[in-house]
C-alpha cells in the first residue's frame, strides 16, 4: 500500500468531484425541496402526500409487487438453480449463458413482448377463446398481474445467477447424507440448503427487490395509467401537474428503500467475508 496522500487525492478527486457535482448536490437539493415550505423546515409535504388515497395505493402496491416478485423469483430460482447446478459442467455453462442473456437485451424490448402475449388479441386470449374457456377476451394487460409477470421476467435472472453461485459451493454429499439418514426434501431444504445459500438468497433478493421497487419501464408499458407504481407516479406528477413536491417525496421514499436494502446487502457481504478464515 502506498501512502502518498497528494498522489492518491489527485487520482481520486476528479471522479469524486464529478460524482458530487453532477450527482450528489442536485439530488440532495431535490430531496430537500419537500422539507421546505414557506421558508421554514417542515414535513407538511410528506403528511399531504400520504393523506391522498391514490398515493397510499401506489405506495403499498409498489411494496406488495416488490415482495411478491422477490418471493416468487426466490421459489422458482431455488428450484431452477438446484436443477442447473446438478447438470454436467458443459451444459451448466450453456444454460447459465441463456439465463444471463436476457440481461443484455433492452428492457423495453423484453417488456414489449408481453403486449403480444397478454393483449386483447394476444396469445393467451386466443388460446382461452379457442379452448372455449371464455367468450370475450379477458383483460390482462394494464392489470397488476401483467406488471407482476413483466417484473418477474425482468428480474428473475438476477436471482437465479445469485443462487447458482451460492449452490456451486454447496456440498452435494451433505444432501445425499441427509436423505440417507431419512430427512424429507422440505427438511433438507430448511436445514441444509437454506442456511448454506443464505448469502446468495440475500444478494439475489436485494437485487430483485430494489429493481422491482424502482422499475419504470414495466409499469409504464404493462400497467399504464391504471396500475401506477412509485416511479410512474413520480413521472406523472411532474409531467402532468408540475408537482415537484410529490416528486421530491417519492424520490426520498425510493432512495431510503434502495439505500437500506443496499446496506443490508453490504452487511451480509461483510459477515460472509469475516466468517472465512
Amino acid at each position, binding site marked *: 500500500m502506498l501512502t502518498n496522500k497528494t498522489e492518491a487525492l489527485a487520482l481520486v478527486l476528479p471522479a469524486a468531484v464529478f460524482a458530487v457535482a453532477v450527482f450528489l448536490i442536485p439530488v440532495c437539493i431535490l430531496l430537500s425541496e419537500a422539507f421546505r415550505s414557506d421558508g421554514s423546515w417542515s414535513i407538511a409535504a410528506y403528511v399531504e402526500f400520504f393523506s391522498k388515497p391514490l398515493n397510499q395505493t401506489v405506495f403499498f402496491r409498489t411494496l406488495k409487487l416488490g415482495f411478491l416478485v422477490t418471493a416468487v423469483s426466490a421459489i422458482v430460482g431455488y428450484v431452477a438453480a438446484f436443477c442447473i447446478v446438478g447438470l454436467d459442467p458443459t451444459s451448466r455453462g450453456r444454460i447459465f449463458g441463456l*439465463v444471463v442473456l436476457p440481461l443484455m437485451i433492452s*428492457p*423495453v424490448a423484453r417488456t414489449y413482448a*408481453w403486449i*403480444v402475449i397478454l393483449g386483447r388479441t*394476444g396469445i393467451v386470449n386466443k388460446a382461452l377463446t379457442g379452448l372455449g374457456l371464455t367468450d370475450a377476451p379477458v383483460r390482462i394487460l394494464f392489470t397488476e398481474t401483467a406488471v407482476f409477470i413483466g417484473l418477474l*421476467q425482468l428480474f428473475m435472472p438476477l436471482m*437465479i445467477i445469485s443462487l447458482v453461485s451460492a449452490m456451486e459451493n454447496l456440498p452435494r454429499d451433505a444432501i445425499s447424507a441427509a436423505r440417507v439418514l431419512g430427512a424429507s426434501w422440505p427438511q433438507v431444504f430448511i436445514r441444509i440448503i437454506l442456511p448454506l445459500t443464505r448469502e446468495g438468497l440475500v444478494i439475489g433478493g436485494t437485487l430483485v427487490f430494489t429493481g422491482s421497487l424502482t422499475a419504470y419501464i414495466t409499469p409504464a408499458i404493462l400497467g399504464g395509467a391504471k396500475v401506477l407504481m412509485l416511479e410512474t407516479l413520480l413521472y406523472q406528477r411532474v409531467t402532468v401537474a408540475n408537482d415537484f413536491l410529490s416528486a421530491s417525496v417519492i424520490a426520498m421514499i425510493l*432512495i431510503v428503500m434502495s439505500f437500506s436494502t443496499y446496506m443490508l446487502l453490504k452487511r451480509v457481504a461483510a459477515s460472509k467475508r469475516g466468517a472465512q478464515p
Partner: protein
Amino acid sequence: MKRNLWVARIVIFLTLAFLIGPFLIIIAAALSAGSSLAFPPQGFSLRWVIAVFEVKSFRASFGLSMFLAVFGTVASLILGVPAAYAVTRYRIPFGEAVRMAVAAPIIVPGIIVGLALLRYLVIPVGMTVTLALFLAHTALVLPYSVRVVSASLENLRPDIEEAAVLLGCSRFGAFARAVLPNIRGGILAAFILGFVTSFNQVPVSLFLSGPGVRTLPIDMLAYIEMTYDPSVAALSALLAFLSIAIVFAAERFLGLSRYV
C-alpha cells in the same frame, strides 16, 4: 436418478421458456407481413425490419444513444481508471466516503438523477439537454468502470510496477508501461458493460429530452404509446442481436465473465 434428471430438464426448459420465450415471439412478430402486432405472424416479410431504418426519429435517437454510450463510457473510464488505481494501491484519506460517492449512482434510482439535473442544471443554468444527458450517463456508468477496473487491478501483483520504478521508470511511466497493458482486458470489459448499460438505460433519460433530442429507448417508449405496428418489435430484435453480438464477441475474445 434417471427420473430426477428428466424432472430437472423440464424445470430448466420451463424457466428458460419464461425468460427467453417472449423474446422469440417478438422476433416472429417482427417478421410478420401484417400491419399490426400479432402472433402467430400473418405471413413472412422483412417489411418491418426495413421500415425501422426509414423512421427518421429512430435514426436520430439511435445516433444520440450511440454517442452517449460511447463517449459517456469513455469519459467514465477517464475518471474511473485513476480512481480505481487509487482505491486499490493507495491508503486514501476518507477512503470509504470516496467509495460511497463513486458508487452512489448505482443506489440512487436513475429517474431521480434525471429529474434533479433537469431542474437544477438544464432549466436555471441553461445547460443543453444533450450535455446533461452526457453527464448523467457518465455518472451512471462510473461505478461500473471503477468496480470492473478495480477487480482487474486487484488481480495484478503490485511487484511489477515496483520493479518498473526501481528500474528507473517514473510512477506515471510505470503505470503507462507496466500496469496499463496488463489491465487492458479489464478496461475493455468495463467499456462493454458500460456501453450496454448506457445504451439500454431508460429512467435517467426520461426527463432529459428536448425537441429532437431523445435517446433510442425513450423514443421506442413514445412510439409504443402511439402506434401498434411491428416496427418496434423489429427494432427490438435488431438491438438484441447487436447487444448479443457485442457480448458474445467480448466473452469469446476477452472472457468478459472473469471481470463482472
